[in-house]
Structures are given as structure tokens and as C-alpha cells.
């Protein structure tokens, strides 16, 4: 598992644009806000709580093809299967890598953005907790959808249609600052579901 994890992180490092693109996409989505709604403090704070979830959802959704599909298309998935007998370790490794590469950059820029949007320190920590637990659950969801749709080409819209409704509970509870325990519970449920469904999807590919 650690070899696969290391390989995926190196792959992200070699194509270093991954880190840069995700965080800059997130920042750009947020920067549009003051142009649309003005610079009123209170209004921006309210909008910030919602729009960060849209930024996070899009960042995770638009990169879901890189979880399994990229390796499937170039043939690396065969090497991964041969070197890792357990599908579960492959899936867990993909969770970790995808979160580090596509979610962690958002958490790095989050303090600066919170400051720019006049978010208080107390609220920042609650937003951070919500995003942290929510992002885990969202990664679990895109992983199993990615595994189930393995081999299907140019289906980003189909995947979006499957994924977005599954993101809705995270978005509903994510905008409520006190609801991080619910997000944690949702993520734990997503993990259980994701492990089974992802393993099933990968097994279908192998067979």
C-alpha cells in the first residue's frame, strides 16, 4: 500500500500542476464573489460559508477521473493490481492520495481566504472542521463512482449526475457551522459504502 501511495504522490509531484490548479481554481471561484455581490462584510461572510462548498465540490468532481481512470487508460492499473493483491489497500491508498493532492491545497489557502472574507477566528475553526470531515466523505463518494464507471470514456456529465445528488447532504450540513459531528457521521457512512462499492467496481474491471 505504501508503495502505491508513494507512487501516486510522486506522480502528483511530477505533474506539479495538480496542486497548483486545485488551489487556484478554489481561489478563483471565491474571488468572483465580491464582483457579483459587492464587498458588504456580513453578506460576504454568509456567501463564503456556502461558496467554499461549491468550490470544494467542483475541485473534487472535476478531478475524479484521475483516481482510477488515468491508470486504467494507460495500463498502469494492471501493474497496480499485480503488485497489490488486496483491492482494499488500493482503494485506501487512492483515498489518501486524492485527499492530499486535491483537498489539502484548499485547506492551505483557506486561512487566507477566510481573512479576506472577514470570517472570525471561531467561525474559521468551525468552517475548517466542517470542510475537513465533509471533504473526506466527498472523496469516498467520488472514489466509488470512479471505480464503478471505470473504462467509460468522456462521461464526466454522467459522473456529475451520479455524484452531485450524493454531495447534497454534505452541502446542506456543511453550511451549518455547528454540524461537524453530522458530517463526520456522513463521512463514516460514505467510507463503508465506498469500500464495498469501489471493490465491486474494481473487481468488475479485473474480471
Amino acid at each position, binding site marked *: 500500500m505504501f*508503495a*502505491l501511495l*508513494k*507512487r501516486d504522490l*510522486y*506522480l502528483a509531484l*511530477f*505533474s506539479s500542476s495538480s496542486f497548483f490548479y486545485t488551489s487556484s481554481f478554489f481561489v478563483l471561484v471565491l474571488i468572483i464573489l465580491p464582483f457579483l455581490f459587492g464587498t458588504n462584510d456580513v453578506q460576504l461572510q454568509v456567501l463564503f460559508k456556502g461558496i467554499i462548498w461549491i468550490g470544494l465540490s467542483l475541485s473534487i468532481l472535476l478531478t475524479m477521473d484521475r483516481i482510477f481512470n*488515468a491508470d486504467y*487508460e*494507460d*495500463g*498502469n492499473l*494492471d*501493474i*497496480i*493490481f*499485480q*503488485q497489490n*493483491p488486496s483491492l482494499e489497500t488500493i482503494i485506501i491508498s487512492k483515498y489518501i492520495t486524492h485527499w492530499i493532492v486535491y483537498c489539502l491545497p484548499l485547506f492551505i489557502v483557506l486561512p487566507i481566504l477566510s481573512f479576506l472574507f472577514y470570517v472570525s477566528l471561531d467561525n474559521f475553526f468551525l468552517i475548517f472542521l466542517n470542510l475537513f470531515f465533509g471533504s473526506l466523505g466527498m472523496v469516498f463518494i467520488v472514489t466509488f463512482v470512479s471505480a464503478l464507471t471505470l473504462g467509460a470514456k468522456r462521461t464526466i456529465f454522467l459522473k456529475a449526475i451520479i455524484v452531485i445528488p450524493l454531495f447534497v447532504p454534505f452541502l446542506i450540513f456543511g453550511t451549518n457551522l455547528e454540524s461537524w459531528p453530522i458530517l463526520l457521521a456522513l463521512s463514516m457512512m460514505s467510507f463503508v459504502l465506498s469500500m464495498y462499492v469501489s471493490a465491486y467496481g474494481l473487481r468488475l474491471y*479485473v*474480471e
Partner: protein
Amino acid sequence: MNELKIEDLTCYRGENLVLKDLNTKLKSGETLVIRGSNGSGKTTFLRVLSNFIKSYKGKILFNDQNVLEDSYYRYSFNFIGQKNSLKDNLSVKNNLRLWEIIYQKKISYSKILEEFNITHLIERDVTSLSDGQKKCISLLRLNFTESKIWYLDEPFVYLDEENSQKLIQKIKNFNNNNGIVIITSNINLQNTFTNEIKI
């Protein structure tokens, strides 16, 4: 001395019967060429042997042990499929590094690139390479494991005469070191490898 035995192998893909009652036996130092028309099941045969496809009838035994029950079998073979397993947006060197990590084996890049006289490609992006050059690099994966069997799916596709001869020599060297090789191919290799079955 290793032995790979295939007994009454039958495999369906969906409703289609792809492999029917295949029987063969290979010992250390032998190469088997699988020939057949497009869609005849050559790749399926190699994927069954590589334990990717596990739903089949019959038995595959490696040293008298069923490969489905042998957890160490995966260390015994190296499967090179038709896809090159190369990341297009990376250089050859970075692709080799990724293989080094996943196979957990350090290797001298210049030494293995020398095999196909492609040392000069090391810094080049894979996108800028020809299909033949990509194939040569893909075949370098054979150096990343200490396997006893090679499963090669259409290894001669895109290779020019010179590199094809180098690959043949590499296979023969592997045979001389007691390796077993199974190759699928559309081209006639009977002058080079006598052991051939048609499916």
C-alpha cells in the same frame, strides 16, 4: 526447475466461449507462442494466466500448485500488456522512477535503456515519442522483477526489425536462465520459437 501446466482451460466472457479445453505444459527454458486471429482470445488467455480473470473452468498449475490458491504466484510472473503503462505528460526518466517505486526495485536507467539503444530518450516527454519507442520503454518493465515467467501480449507490435531481434535475444537469454515465456502474436515466429499453439 519450474513447470506451468494448463489443464482443460475453458473461459467465457459474458455469453461468449473464448477459450475451450486448452491443455499445455511448459517447463523452465521454454517459450510458447499463442497465435490466433483478432478476438480469438489471446489476450484473455494471458489475463487468465496472470490471475486477472479468475472465473474459468479447468486448472492452471505452477509447480503443481493451483495459481488461484498460491498467494506467492503473483511474484512469479511479469505481465506486459498491450497498453504501454506510460504517463504521457511525464518524461521517460520520471516514468521509470514511478515503476521503480511501484515494483520496489532500484535499477540503473542507463543500463536498461541501453538494451534498445534509447539512452538518449531519457529526458524526453513520452508524448513526443513514436509508438515503437514507447513500446521499447514499456518492455523495459521486464527488468523490474525477478520473475520466473513472462507473459507478453503482442510484444512485437510497433517494433522495427532491429529491436524485434533484440527482444528475441532477450527472451532467449531469459529462457537460458530457466525462464518460461508465453507470447501472443499475430506474426509468424515459428522460425524463432518452435513451440506454438493456435486458438
